[in-house]
């Protein structure tokens, strides 16, 4: 059942990915400037230029260029970076691990701490705790990430000297970036968990569960949590692109490499193939996230499973 559902969702992604790939391919042509100019030796002739343009296949029609490009993408062939002069795949392979590590840890951190906080504030009837959590949620969803990062650096790196100021060496350098991204993530997950739990607690079946003599703990873990998990999983899955690409601010402040930084640098250098590959990777992550979210929801909720298949 779940397999069939997944397959269906996958099929639906085909036209979507096609349109996305066209959009991404076109974005690059909206960019002003020309990477060839950056590549050309100073003072070179128009002939030199034409030769380079031909070498990178930029002289063919857009349609041809698109199909060549998408064909290569399918074979995992991302082409050659124009400014950075190396296979784009190498660049992605170099940067992606940093994004995945940071994103993965931030993801773990936000989901565990966020769910714990959300559950605490929804389940424990303590107005002080609830107010604290709600205050935290408000702060976490409003404080600009870069500013938080700066404050964390000031406090933990400069004043206390616990963690490095910047860079991507060792676990120490991950702590502050993960905290920065996690802060907002925790707030988000806590909010969703809290609302979901408060909502589901009002359901009749919860009263009945109590009436069955189940302990509050058993009710929370066996019955309430799955309901709270539904929206949390959905929102987190949708955030995969957010966590991978949106880390760019944090990467910038902490001087970390990553997909977002690579994209921004490539945008600045007008390095078409890199921009395209990065955007494609991010779009892929976004689609994958949506897919995971849908499938997870279907796996957890029989009603969705039937409605859609």
């Amino acid at each position, binding site marked *: 059942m779940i397999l069939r559902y997944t397959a269906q969702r996958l099929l639906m992604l085909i036209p979507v990915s096609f349109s996305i790939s066209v959009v991404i391919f076109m974005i690059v042509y909206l960019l002003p400037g020309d990477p060839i100019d950056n590549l050309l030796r100073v003072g070179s002739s128009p002939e030199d230029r034409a030769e380079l343009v031909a070498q990178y296949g930029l002289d063919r029609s857009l349609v041809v260029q698109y199909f060549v490009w998408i064909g290569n993408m399918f074979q995992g062939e991302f082409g050659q970076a124009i400014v950075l002069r190396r296979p784009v795949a190498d660049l992605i392979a170099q940067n992606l691990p940093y994004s995945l590590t940071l994103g993965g840890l931030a993801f773990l951190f936000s989901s565990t701490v966020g769910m714990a906080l959300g559950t605490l504030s929804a389940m424990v009837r303590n107005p002080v705790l609830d107010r604290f959590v709600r205050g935290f949620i408000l702060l976490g969803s*409003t404080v*600009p990430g870069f500013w938080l990062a700066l404050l964390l650096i000031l406090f933990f790196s400069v004043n206390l000297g616990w963690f490095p100021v910047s860079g991507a060496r060792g676990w120490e350098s991950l702590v502050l970036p993960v905290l920065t991204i996690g802060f907002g993530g925790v707030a988000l997950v806590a909010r969703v968990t809290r609302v979901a739990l408060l909502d589901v607690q009002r359901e*009749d079946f919860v009263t009945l569960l109590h009436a069955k003599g189940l302990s509050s703990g058993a009710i929370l873990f066996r019955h309430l949590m799955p309901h709270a998990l539904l929206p949390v999983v959905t929102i987190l899955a949708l955030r995969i692109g957010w966590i991978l690409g949106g880390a760019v601010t944090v990467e910038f402040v902490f001087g970390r490499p990553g997909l977002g930084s690579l994209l921004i640098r490539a945008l600045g250098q007008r390095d078409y193939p890199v921009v395209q590959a990065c955007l494609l990777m991010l779009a892929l992550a976004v689609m994958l996230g949506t897919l995971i979210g849908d499938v997870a929801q279907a796996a957890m909720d029989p009603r969705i499973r039937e409605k859609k298949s």
Partner: protein
Amino acid sequence: MKTSSMTARTLDAFARMSIGRAFASGIGMVAGGFLVLLVLVAIFAPWIAPFDYAAQNLMNANAPPGWPHLLGTDEFGRDVLSRVIFGARTSLSVSATAIAISMAAGMTLGAAAGYFGGFFERAVMTVVDLTWSFPDILIALIFVAIIGPGLTSTTFAIAIAYLAQFTRLTRAQIVRLKRETFIEATINLGAKPSHILLRHLMPNAIAPVIVVGMLAIGDGIVLEATLGFFGLGAQPPTPSWGAMMSSGTAQLFLSPWVIIFPGVAVAVTVIAVNLFGDELIRALDIRDRLRGS
């Protein structure tokens, strides 16, 4: 709508009279009051600011908070307080303009998609859904890369970053309303689409969109600050809260007030916007309509 039940009804009955509500509306007052004050400060900045925001005095650079520079001076000896006050102008106007543009465009697009449906709807929503799950900062950065840095491009970048949100929300409202009987009746009576859209659908759909717009102004301020921090927003010496913080990490060590005060301004403003927005949602009783869109 969820069928209310014994428990829920009892809960609601007692929640309504709890002190929480009174307290919450108190918060609404404080937040709203703060925002009004902030707008006034932004409008009357030239009369309020104690110094010229652009006047340099290199001999008095990085002076700590004190007299006469209440919030200290920056690396050029400019008065931080005056820059924060003028920064409110930039940050608020950029964000509000951007959200207004975004809202107008998103409502048009969303209403059209929701009303006409079919291929048009699917085409619009495919792109919208994709950009919706794309990080707003990336959308904005790409856009600024395309048309270059500055306040105008920042405004449009923010507008584009939130376009998806308004389109989705408007479409969801329209689709929901279309199913309601009074609209169906109007359609069956053979009214013109424009008439139905403008007279019947939009007025009913507008409240949630406006509230989300209000909340988005907060997000817009954060995004503007982030772009400014990247050096892509307001160009010097125009002060914006984000641009003020772009002087680098070291400033944090040399003269933290230069970075801390604009950051506090952003955080407090956005918190006020959020609290006030929540209050608005509660007052208009549209929380359910905001869900699932």
